[in-house]
């Protein structure tokens, strides 16, 4: 896993082909969080295209996107910046390599309403 190209991972997770972008800016024109973002929605596409994923995952924008999907709805080229942002978020989450739950904690967390699936998920590790 260690040296898999992160840009292609983002493309794979999102299903987006950034080459389809014609740089019209409709995503940034639609974005309600535009002013909160350091990297603007239309720039997301070129960051992925240029493979500069480091800047992307360390940007403020990553967590400022409201996932309102306005850009996704209105993008005339089916590029869908919101999907790229979401894929970058997943990359961050998966890259932590952290253990989210230790088996010792389980007994006190258990109650009958807790779905078992949640426990299974909590044990999942995204390791390098």
């Amino acid at each position: 896993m260690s040296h898999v190209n992160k840009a292609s991972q983002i493309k794979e997770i999102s299903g987006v082909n950034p080459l389809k972008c014609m740089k019209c800016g409709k995503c940034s024109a639609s974005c309600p969080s535009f002013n909160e973002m350091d990297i603007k929605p239309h720039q997301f596409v070129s960051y992925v295209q240029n493979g500069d994923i480091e800047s992307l995952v360390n940007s403020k924008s990553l967590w400022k996107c409201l996932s309102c999907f306005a850009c996704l709805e209105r993008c005339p080229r089916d590029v869908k910046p919101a999907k790229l942002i979401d894929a970058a978020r997943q990359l961050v989450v998966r890259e932590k390599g952290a253990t989210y739950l230790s088996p010792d904690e389980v007994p006190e967390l258990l109650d009958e309403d807790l779905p078992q699936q949640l426990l299974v998920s909590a044990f999942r590790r995204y390791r390098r």
Partner: protein
Amino acid sequence: MQRIGVFVCHCGSNIAATVDVKKVAEMALLEPGVVHAEDYQYMCSEAGQAKIQAAIKEKNLTGIVVCSCSPRMHENTFRSAAEKAGLNPYMVEIANIREHCSWIHKNVEEATEKAVILARAAIAKVNLNAPLKPGESLVTKRALVIGGGIAGIQTALDIADAGYEVDIVEKTPSIGGRMSQLDKTFPTLDCSACILTPKMVEAAAHEKITIYTYSEVEKVSGFVGDFTVDIRKKARFVDAGKCTGCGVCQEKCPSKKSLSEFNRGLNTRSAIYTPFAQAIPNVPVIDTEACIKMKTGKCGICSKVCQAGAIDYEQKDEILTQKYGAIVVATGFDTIKLDNYDEYAYNQSKDVITSLELERVMNAAGPTKGHLERLSDGKHPKEMVFIQCVGSRCSDGRGKSYCSKICCMYTAKHAMLIRDKYPDVNVTVFYIDVRTPGKNFDEFYRRAVEDYGVNYIKGQVGKVIPQPDGKLLVQGVDLLDNKQILKEADMVVLATAIEPNPDVRKIATMLTASIDTNNFLTESHAKLRPVESPTAGVFLSGVCQGPKDIPETVAQAGAAAVKAIGLLAKDKLMTNPCTAKADELMCNGCSTCANVCPYGAITYEEKEVNDHGIRETRRIAVVNSALCQGCGACTVTCPSGAMDLQGFSNRQIIAEVDAICR
């Protein structure tokens, strides 16, 4: 036994770089019937053709195979070269080793193997070829032009000036088309009506031109040189022979609430109407949906006020059947519907309009008498925003994937005209790219920026939000400043994508003319035959073939006219000899072939046959070779295998397949 010559073309490096042409020639020599094989750099060149002709004579060839490009490209070239050397042109076969082989493969070994196989198949076919002789058909010296816009008018004028009869069939009550709705035209800013109406008058007055307005093509049969067309002349309910065009009926008509098609629904018209004052013919029509007399039987005011007694409520549609040698399609365009683009608030606010609607607003004969004003409250706007590419260049399924081509220029025109007439109005244009190739076009756009102070912003508009005070809040982006923009505007103008007139699908089906996924009619060759449909005798003029502006449309209209004239100038046409033929002894007269024939070329006759000594009268299929287009539908549907296509017989095709699979 045939004596076959095989000629392998290098096509420069197009074929030779991927296919070992020498080896193809060598391998061909091993095939049955082949007595000669050679390769050459350019077979289609004069020197190449001379080589073919020399070999035909020296080696007494009875058939040849040329391994080269697609037969669509050079089959005729090689057939006529062979004919000049005394060979029947139908003894020539092409093995397409360029489009079907060298262009699509990279590996030389594999491509060479495939080229050898393709050559082998063609050789197998020639071994079974028989000389064919084309028949002749007469050319009706009359052209039909479908559509009476600037494209149709120009085509008709050019054909008529060459001395041929032309009929224009126009769906609406007047000729003039979209151009008659425009106010000014780029890049010279001359008034559209001032340059169009003289042409309309010229067409109407031309002794060789007949104009059928309010009429539609209903049925087309026949083929190049000899089309038969049914034209439906819709009832106008006004006798064109009596009407003087005084206009009193329109003034007095009490039903005045129908939306004016000519003014894009921005104002209303009477039930009896001419679309605009300069309409040709200046004969109104009655809109049966709106006419009170038609709906309730009461009223009849127009009839009472008509001094000429021209109103005829009993008039019926008429069908006119006419023969034509050539048909030109000039069905034009419309703007797309904006229902998929809620973000621009077009359906929410009267002050969000399309560019074509703005043309009507700016026009002295339009709904505002040419005054720039908001359609909601009649107020003079101070801030105007233009949005480019609305529905164009959209590959998301909401709009059109293509560039509509005319919008950049007409927006620069609108912006300039507004700034010139009303210097107090600020004009902002949101654009993705400014595309202004063309003579004096980029200079025109730069004038809007530099001399008229139009504010061009690189970026798109995300949404337009109507405000309670009637203003429009425009949220867009400036990509060069990397800033989001919130701007209050009084009017928003959408550069709406254009699409072919929706009726064109119906017409293309009638003409068996091919059409692309965007409903544009397909040209025979994108570069070399741009105004001809692949269907012989059908020509294309104007936006029905692809987006274009007026200068381009007029140029293409002239080109289509020349092609039509070239056809009409001939007295006779050679017909394709590759037609179907029924084997009398095998035909059982079941009618299956006649049912599938799209050209009505198959009839039946009672005929006496001698079937191995048994003489009897049988019902047998007979193909009219003048009507048969050689599509082959009958040959595959015939249950007894009696139908065969000359030049493409079942035996020949099976021999090709066998040669490939060997």
